[in-house]
Structures are given as C-alpha cells and as structure tokens.
C-alpha cells in the first residue's frame, strides 16, 4: 500500500511538472490535490493499512480540493459579480468557506477526533515505549 501511494505521488508530481511548463491550469488543479492527498494518506498508513476515520476524512478533503479548485477555475471571475455570499462573490465564497475553512473540520479536527482509534491507542503506545526503554 505504501509503495502504491508513493507511485501516486510520483505520477501526480510528473503531471504537475507538465502542467507548470505547459500552462495547463486544469491539469494542475487536478494533480496537486491528488499529490497532497496521497502524501497525507501515506502518513496515515499503519503497517500498510489505514483506519476508517482517517480514510473518510482524507477522502473528504480530496473531494473538497478537487471540487473547489476545478469549480473556481470554471467560473468567470473577470465579470462583475451579481451575487454575493457571506460578503464575497460566489467563486471567492467557495475559496474562503469551502477550500479554506472546510478542510479545518474535515482534516484538522478529524485528526484529533479519530486519533485514538486511527493514529495510536494508549495500549499500543505503552507497548512501544516499553520496547524502546528496553532497547535503550
């Protein structure tokens, strides 16, 4: 699983490189969120697998990023806006309230919420600490 995630990172990085030099905005908008997602996913893997809470959390963040960046690119931001949501034109509201704030709940808050289930349990930590103590 770790090797597969690294291959995803490599593929996304190559696509980003192509997008940067070819000025392919949509390719960039699709590839860099995938790279960031795969890297976080790799970090959340434990011995090759991932807890369901972290998995759902990270996939949600990916969906927000992909949806947000592609949608913002599709919108005409040079036209005078007629609708304002929460103080901003629609595309900017997506930027502020979806791409900026929502990942705080889906990714950052979720890290703490699922920590003891998906990151490390107290028993696992005690076992590890005992092992390190013995070895040192």
């Amino acid at each position, binding site marked *: 699983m770790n090797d597969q995630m*690294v291959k995803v990172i490599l593929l996304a990085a190559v696509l980003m490189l192509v997008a*940067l030099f070819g000025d392919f905005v949509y390719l960039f908008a699709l590839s860099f969120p995938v790279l960031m997602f795969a890297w976080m996913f790799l970090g959340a893997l434990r011995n090759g697998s991932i807890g369901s809470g972290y998995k759902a959390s990270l996939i949600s963040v990916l969906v927000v990023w992909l949806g947000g960046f592609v949608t913002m690119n599709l919108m005409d931001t040079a036209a005078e*806006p007629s609708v304002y949501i929460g103080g901003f034109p629609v595309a900017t509201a997506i930027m502020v309230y979806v791409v900026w704030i929502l990942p705080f709940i889906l990714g*950052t808050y979720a890290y703490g919420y699922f920590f003891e289930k998906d*990151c490390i349990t107290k028993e696992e930590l005690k076992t590890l600490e005992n092992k390190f103590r013995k070895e040192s």
Partner: protein
Amino acid sequence: MNTIITIAVIYLIGVFAIGIWAMRRTKTSEDFFIAGKSLGIFVAAMAVFATALSGFLFIGGPGLTYSVGMGALWFTFPTSISFAMAWYILGKRMRLLTDATGAMTVADAVYYRFKSRAASGLTGVATLVGIVVFLGTQVLALGTIIAYIFPAISVTQGVIIGMTIVALYSAAGGILAGTYTSVFQGSIMAVGSFLVFILTLTTGDGLTNITQTIATQPFTDMGTAMPEFVGPWGLVGPMVAMSWFFALSIGIVGQPHVVSRLYMIKDVNKLKWGPAVAAVPAILGGLLFFGVGLVMRYLVMTGEIAPLANPDDAILVFLTEFTPPVLAGIVLAGVAAAIMSTCDAFINIASAAAVRDLPRAFGKKLSDKKQLVYGRIAVVTISVITVVTVLQMGDDGIALLGAVGWGTFAAALAPVLGLGLNWKRATKEGAIASIIVGLVSSVGFEILATIGVYELPNGIYIGALSMVLSLIAFIAVSFATKQEQLDEVMETVMDA
C-alpha cells in the same frame, strides 16, 4: 505614540522575564534543543503556530492583498490544513523516533533513517542555508518595526537591538525560552488579529460593501475596474495562486523550525489536538491578512486615503489612522512577536545544526555539556553573522534571500523527511539526490532570474517547482537503487 511605546516596553519586559525563567530550567542539551520533551498540547501548538507564521503574515500579507487582491490569500489559506499535514505525515513517527533514538534535529531523523552521514550532513547544510536566507528577512522586518515604534531609532539600530534581544533570551533559555515566548507572542498575535479584523469590517461598512465597491468601481491607481481583484485568484492568476497553496501547505513538512517542535511534545498522546489548536490562531491571522489588505484598497477607492506608495505600509497606515492606540500597540507588539518567535526558532535550529549535525557529518560527537556550552556560543555567533549580513546586503539582497526561504526548506527537506519516514523503499541515494536537487533548483533558479539569465515561464513559483523536482528525484533514485534493510527500531517506528 506614547501608548504604543508603553505597550512595546511592557511586552519586551515580558519576553525577558520568560527568558530568565527558562534559563533556570535549562540544564542539558535536551532542554536547550528540544525543551526536555516537556511541552503540552497548547504550548506546543501555539509555539508551532507562532513559529510558522513569520512577520510576512502581518506586514507582507496585507500589502500583497492590497496589491494583487484575494489571490494573495493562497499564502495564508494553507493554515487550515497544513498543520494537520505535518501531524499526519510526521507527527507520530518523529515523536516516537526521539523516544527510540534520542533524535533532536531534522538531520538526526535523517541519520537514523538512512544511516548515512552524507545525507544527514547535507540536511544540516540545507538547514543552515535555509535559515540564513530566511532569518535575514525576519531580522530586517524586526528592525523596521522597532524603528516605527521608536521613531528616534533607525532601522539599522533596530536590527541590532532586535537581534540582541532575541539572541540574549535564546542563548540563555534555548528553545524553552523560545517556546514560552512564542506562546505569549502567539496569543497576542491571535487576539490582535481578530480585533483588527472586526475593525476593518466596521471601517468599510461590512464585507459585502467592501468587496462590492472594489469589484464595481475603477481603480484610482490602475485606471480601470477589475472585478477579478476580489475573485479567487486576484490579479495573479490561477496557476500561480494554486502553486502558492501547494508549496505553502505540503511544504510545511520540510520546515525544520516547525517539525522539530514535534520532538518537544511531552508524549505521543499529546499530538492529538495539536493541529487544531495551532490552526485556530492561524485562521485568525488570515482574517487580518485579507481584512486589512481589502479595506485599505477600499479606502483608496473611496478617496478616504491616498494610494500607498509602498503596499507593505498597509498595516502600519491602518493601525495609525484607523485603530485606537491601545489596539495599535498590541498589534504592533504582535507583529514584532511574530518575527521574534520565528527568529528564535531559526537561531536555535541553526545552533543545533552547528553543534550536532555538522560535527557528525565529519564523524565527531560532542559531549552533552559541550553541546550546551557550544550551542549558546553558536546562538550568539549566528546572531552576529546575521546582523552583519543584513546590514551588508541591504533591502534588495534581503528580498532575494526571503524569496527562497520557505521554498528552500520545502524543496530540500520535505521529501527526505515526509517520504523518508513513511516509505521503507526509500534509499539514502534517493535522499541525497533529493536534497541536492531541492537546494540547487530553489537557489539556482532564483539567482538566474535575479541576474537576468533565465526566468521560468508562465510565472511558475520556484518553491513549487523545486519541491516537485526534488520529489521526483527522491522517488526515482530510490526505485533505481538497492533497498537497504532497516534496523529493528526504525522498522518499529515506521510501522507504528
């Protein structure tokens, strides 16, 4: 101005008091470099926040928003998730690694992971290079703020005074002093940011009025209406804006002043709410970032103030003209705080690189007592070198250095740490290739552009490109070279 000066003096007395308190608690090199692994959730998270967000958030950020609009915000928007990225990717493994091996620096982690003095030494070199290029900008900004608060003091004198203060409390109390001053400083930054944001909304009669005015009226200093100014990409365009978001978010994994804090957390369970606690004040800082930038543009468009000659004056003009003196004093102290907390973390890490990482690269290891003594000497030496460099190079040279700061760390260190600690197939050859590619591309492209030899096409952000190249080099070279067997400790840490 008297109120502002009074608040600034009280603030400096507070910083010194924390330095003296921390000095009494600093007895070993572990205390000096990683705060004796004693930090709770709140202290660690606030220190991470204060360290990660430099003076750019308060000075450069509002100025950039004033110049290019909402697109500037991709510099600050990563904060809602970037701390979690560092925690997901490195948190548990780095914290376990220090329990298992006694690792204290980023180069230590690389050494224990790859068993390579070359990879570890190169990490130390990349750390020092990154710090030199980053610290200069911080120190210059600190001198500017001190000169603004105390009109009788020049910027040069401000640089010397500011650096002396930081060096004194860093040499005395090491990272412990730096950490607790960061908590104090971070709290000021967060509260001040929120209050200023509220004031910007009041000054501009609400956010919708501000954005609508900017979107519909001709720019007095640019001649035409530009609705895209308040669009998601501002005037910089989507590719550049998205590149900023990429490099500033995942790039946090390579920032030694941020990730080395993970070693300092009391126990692994204390990692739990760290990113959430760090993200809240960072988000509040983001409110100030765009609030001040937008309202200053609004005030120019409505004729209430003249166009700014220097966009970086946006925050200072707003504080002077539209903010009660007490709040202005608190925010200016917050600006100085942001800069100082980043400076002290940089100095401490550079000191650790000098007394731990580089000697090991040459096969030497200093005793704990010597590390503590030489660490303090290194703090003073690095501070003096930084001041001399800043005064010699002047504004233009420092601006060049600042441009490559975050990107250099991200490109040279993020893959080697972020993939190295999570991917067993990674090899030391991959690590070495990645650090070299990251350093050379980050610094090289910047120099080529500055001397006019080659400029990247499509407005490519050098930090983003360099990190992509470094990642590709790391993975490709690792796949192309022979995997080495991990020792049992490293295997356990990476499986956990």
